[in-house]
Structures are given as C-alpha cells and as structure tokens.
C-alpha cells in the first residue's frame, strides 16, 4: 500500500474533493497547522489532497455535497480553527467545558422528544440520544457523542512515535489491532522498515481474531436488542471462546500491543498449531450459531426491514465496513488496496443489498467464516515457526497515511513526525467515527423500540469516535 500527496489551493479544493470522492473511496478530513487534508483511498493506497490555509482565509465546506464530511469539517473548525463558509451545521461538534451542544429536534403536531443518556440502563458507553417522535414513529434522532473525549490527538503531539504506540493501542479496546496495525505501517513507511513475512501473517491473524470477537458480540447484542436471549447467550459464549484464545496466544484478551512498529511482540503465537486446531473446532459451532439466528423465523422477521440504510445514503455518508457492504457497497480496504498478508491471502468479501438489520447480521456472519478460513491459511503458513522480534527502524520523519480494515470498517491513521521521531500530528479515525451519523439516519421512519436493535446492528464504539 502506497501513499501520495497532492497540493491544491484553497480555491480549487472543493472541486478536487468532489472529483476524488467520485473516483476513489473518500475516507475523511483533518487539519494540522495551517493545512487541511482530505484523504481518499485509491487502489494503490491513500491519497491526500492538501491545501495550505493562510490567516483569515475561509474554505468552502464540502458537506453540502458530501454529508460524510459533516463531523470532519466541524472538528477542523472547532479544534484547529479552520474557517468554513456554507457549513450546514453551525453547532459545536464536541462538548467543551461542560457545555453540551443543543440537540436538533423535529417539530410539528404531536411531536414529542425523548432524551436518553449520557448514562444508559446497561453497560454502554456514554452518548445522549434525543428522539423526536410522533406517537411511536421516529421523525428525527440527534446523537450527541464526545462524552468519552480525552483530547488524544493533541496530547500525542510532541511524544516520540514509539512511546505513543502503547497509547494508540488503547484509544479504543475493540479496534486495538486494526489501529495499531495502521499506526505501525505509518512508522514502518517512515522508518524504511519491512516486516518479516511471519510477522505479516501474525498481524493478519490478530486482525481477523479481532473481527471475529467483535462480530460475535455484535450478533449477540443484536439478538439482545430483539429480545432473543438464546442468540445473545450463545453469541457471548462464542465471543468468550475467541477472547480466551486471544489471551492465550497473544498474552492479552484484546491483543493490546500484539502489533508493534517493526513487527509483532516477541512471544506471540508460540504455538500456531494449537490455535489452528482451536479455530477449526470453532467453525462448526459458529455455523450452528448462524443456523440458530437465521433459521429462527421470529428473529429474522424482527431483523427484516428494520433500520434500513439505502445504497444512496450509505454512499452520501461515506459508509465503510459491514454497514456499507450490507447496503450494496463493495469497498473493503483488504481487497481494494491490499496490505500485508492480504496481498497473499485474499479475503472473499460478502455483500448484501437490503441495508437492514438482517443484511448487516448476514454480512458479519459470513465475514466470520471467511476470517476463520484466512486464519487457517495464515497459521498453516506459519507452520511450527513463530514470528521474530520486531525489525529495527531507522526513523527519518515525514508524513504518511495508512489504512486498514477494522471490524467496523476503514481505520485511517495520518501521522506526521520530525527527524527525531517527535509526533507533529496524529489523526486517527475508525469505522465507528465514519458510521455514527448514519446510525442516526437509519432510525428515521422506524419506531422508538427499534432504537436499541438498530443501534446494536451497527454496535459502534464511542471511544474511538470521541478520541
């Protein structure tokens, strides 16, 4: 996977963004000192359109034509002081100094608002959801996040790229591997370092195990959202099996720091044959789980036609990951711009087109079977050998953007560092950040009791969206 930059003027930026968004996969935008960057994924790797913004200069917002940039542009405005004209949502994106932005609500005859959060009646990350409903029907859902905001990106500035690696691993637990992998790839690109093939196979295995436990949790949570306890309990049981395997074979249940700049942590995957046998034994159990879910007629009926995301809307909001691929989209970073061992072991990416809860569940279920297949191949490649310690880096500084496919879609890391390895800018977004605005839209025209189910059919993280 490569990376290229293209300098453009502030005046030509919106037209160039439009052009590239149609030609490639748009990923997001961020700002650093006096420079805004819109990032895209080409077949060859990431493409950055970069425009220098002079003092007092204003940018034309790309959000009116591409709603996907709504959060990115508001974040650039609020956090980095970039001035936009025609930005549709003037409200602050983040909660600052205890001031929570006012929710947008629908108005009209019989419309009432229901506010839930930020603390929820379950073990759920914090968010405030303001539901405008007319009777049972939802007219509008306003999702206010940023309750988990720690100001991570600014805090990492000035830190050495290697010292920051363990922190990057824990920005959000459930996306740890995909983020550490993208981060490591940035450092390796700027450090003239190539991983050993064994380390690349190990990374693929970790990433697929992460997808596996996340998808099992998503299916368990969606079952709970539909009141199907058996599906919830069986999903939690299988998830626990995978997390125990992660703990046994990487030393950590969430695989924190298993991926390290230059390779993988010494000592991981000490017994590839044992992991291979365990995962082979899991396959029929996961298949039985699929049968339980998709042959329970009442569950399928509840999942069907609920929380629909149309292909047009998925496109406009820049959907990624299973959320995109359940709505007729095709993009998967692993096949669109292959990296690491995905160049050798090619994913067989499943698609659905209905865009409802059922389609998302089916995509995730079939992805899990493919994850098992790829783990099996990668573990066979490792044979009895185990990956070595990470390779040496000779860090030369510069900028790089690397993209991986996490359980919820594209994980994008843009890293800038000086010659000494000091971070000048680190921007990190995940599939959760990209997909949250879509969750709110997927609720429209549903009924209030759909909310937990539709929300859990995406099961996005808050920690990596808030940062």
């Amino acid at each position, binding site marked *: 996977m490569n990376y290229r930059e293209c300098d453009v003027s502030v005046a030509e930026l919106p037209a160039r963004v439009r052009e590239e968004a149609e030609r490639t996969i748009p990923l997001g935008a961020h700002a650093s000192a006096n420079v805004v960057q819109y990032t895209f994924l080409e077949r060859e790797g990431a493409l950055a359109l970069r425009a220098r913004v002079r003092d007092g200069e204003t940018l034309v917002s790309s959000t009116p034509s591409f709603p996907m940039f709504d959060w990115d542009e508001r974040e650039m405005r609020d956090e980095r002081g970039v001035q936009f004209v025609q930005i549709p949502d003037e409200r602050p994106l*983040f*909660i600052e*100094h*205890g001031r*929570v932005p006012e929710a947008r609500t629908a108005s009209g005859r019989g419309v009432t608002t229901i506010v839930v959060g*930020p*603390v929820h*009646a*379950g*073990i*759920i*990350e*914090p968010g405030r959801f303001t539901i405008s409903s007319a009777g049972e029907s939802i007219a509008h859902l306003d999702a206010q996040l*940023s*309750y*988990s*905001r*720690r*100001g*991570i990106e*600014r*805090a990492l500035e000035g830190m050495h790229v290697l010292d920051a690696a*363990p*922190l990057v691993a*824990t*920005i*959000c*637990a*459930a996306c740890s591997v995909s983020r550490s992998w993208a981060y490591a790839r940035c450092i390796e690109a700027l450090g003239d370092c190539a991983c050993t093939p064994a380390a690349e196979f190990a990374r693929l295995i970790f990433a697929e195990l992460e997808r596996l436990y996340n998808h099992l*949790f998503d299916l*368990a949570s969606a079952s709970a959202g539909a009141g199907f306890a058996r599906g*919830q*309990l069986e999903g*939690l*049981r299988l*998830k*626990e099996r995978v*997390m125990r395997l992660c703990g046994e074979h990487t030393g950590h*249940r*969430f695989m*924190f720091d298993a991926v390290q700049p230059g390779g993988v942590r010494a000592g991981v995957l000490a017994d590839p044959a044992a992991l291979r046998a365990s995962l082979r034994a899991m396959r029929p159990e996961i298949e039985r789980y699929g049968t339980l879910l998709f042959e329970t007629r009442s569950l399928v009926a509840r999942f069907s036609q609920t929380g629909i995301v149309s292909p047009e809307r998925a496109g406009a909001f820049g959907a990624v990951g299973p959320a995109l691929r359940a709505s007729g989209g095709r993009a998967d970073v692993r096949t669109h711009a292959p990296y690491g061992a995905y160049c050798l072991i090619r994913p067989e990416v499943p698609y659905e087109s209905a865009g409802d809860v059922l389609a998302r569940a089916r995509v995730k279920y079939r992805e899990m079977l493919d994850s098992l297949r790829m783990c099996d191949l990668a573990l066979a490649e490792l044979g009895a050998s185990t990956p070595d310690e990470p390779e040496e880096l000779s860090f030369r500084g510069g900028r790089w953007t690397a993209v991986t496919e996490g359980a919820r879609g594209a994980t994008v890391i843009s890293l800038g560092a000086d010659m000494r390895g000091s971070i000048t800018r680190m921007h990190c977004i995940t599939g959760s950040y990209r997909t949250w605005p879509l969750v709110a839209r997927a609720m429209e025209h549903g009924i209030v009791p759909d909310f937990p189910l539709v929300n859990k059919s995406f099961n996005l*993280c*808050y*920690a990596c969206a*808030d940062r």
Partner: protein
Amino acid sequence: MSRPFTHALAIRHLVCGSCNGCEHEMNALAGPDYDMTSEGFEIAASPRHADAITISGPMSDAMRSAAAATIAAAAQPCIIVAIGDCAAGAGPWCGIGTAGNGAGEEVGAEIVVRGCPPTPEQIKAGLREAAARLNDGSR
C-alpha cells in the same frame, strides 16, 4: 455452590472516558461463562435502584457532572466500585490530554478492581466484595 447466597446487587455502570475494554469485560458477565445472575447481580435501569455504582475510565471532562448526578441520585447505602486501571488512577490515559486522574479516585471508590482491563473474573470478585461489604453491616 461453595458460598451461600448473601446479597443481591443492583449495579449502575458509569463510563467516564474508558476505552470500552472494561465495558466489554463487564458485558461478558452476562454470558454463560460468568453468569452474574447466579450471584444475584443485575444491571439496574436507574441509579435509584442501585446498590453499587461501578465506574470506569480516567474521567472525561464531559462526564464529570453526569457522574456526580448519578452518584447523588443513588439510594443509600450504595457502594462505589472502580473498574480498571484508568478508574484506579493508574491506567494509560490518566492525566493525558483532558482526561482526569482516575474516575474512581475522583469519586472516592471504596473497592478498586485493577487490570487493563480487568478480566470478567476479577470484576466479578470485586462485585462479590461489594455485596459482602454491604451485607456485613460494616458500613
């Protein structure tokens, strides 16, 4: 069962800048491997129903007032349990950026479950300790 049933525990969980790792491990308690209902533990739908408040994360600015309001709303006696290294004041995000120095520290947690994140078994042990303290009349 080696231990007699002593005390049910209704739990309200507060997430204050956690990375969601502690939440994943707490959610595991609902699964068949840890089955917290066999201990008489349940997640309460309101702090008014809570015997224990579990709290995770370093404390984010945006959660500070909601956390205080939740704790103030809990009926007494109610015991506060810090879940994870961040809440204990020793996690990776304590004091970094706008994060606080430990949500459990800040709100005066009585029981601290260490780990990054703690395992479901460790969290369950902390909750058993909370139930025991509420039950033995020591507070």
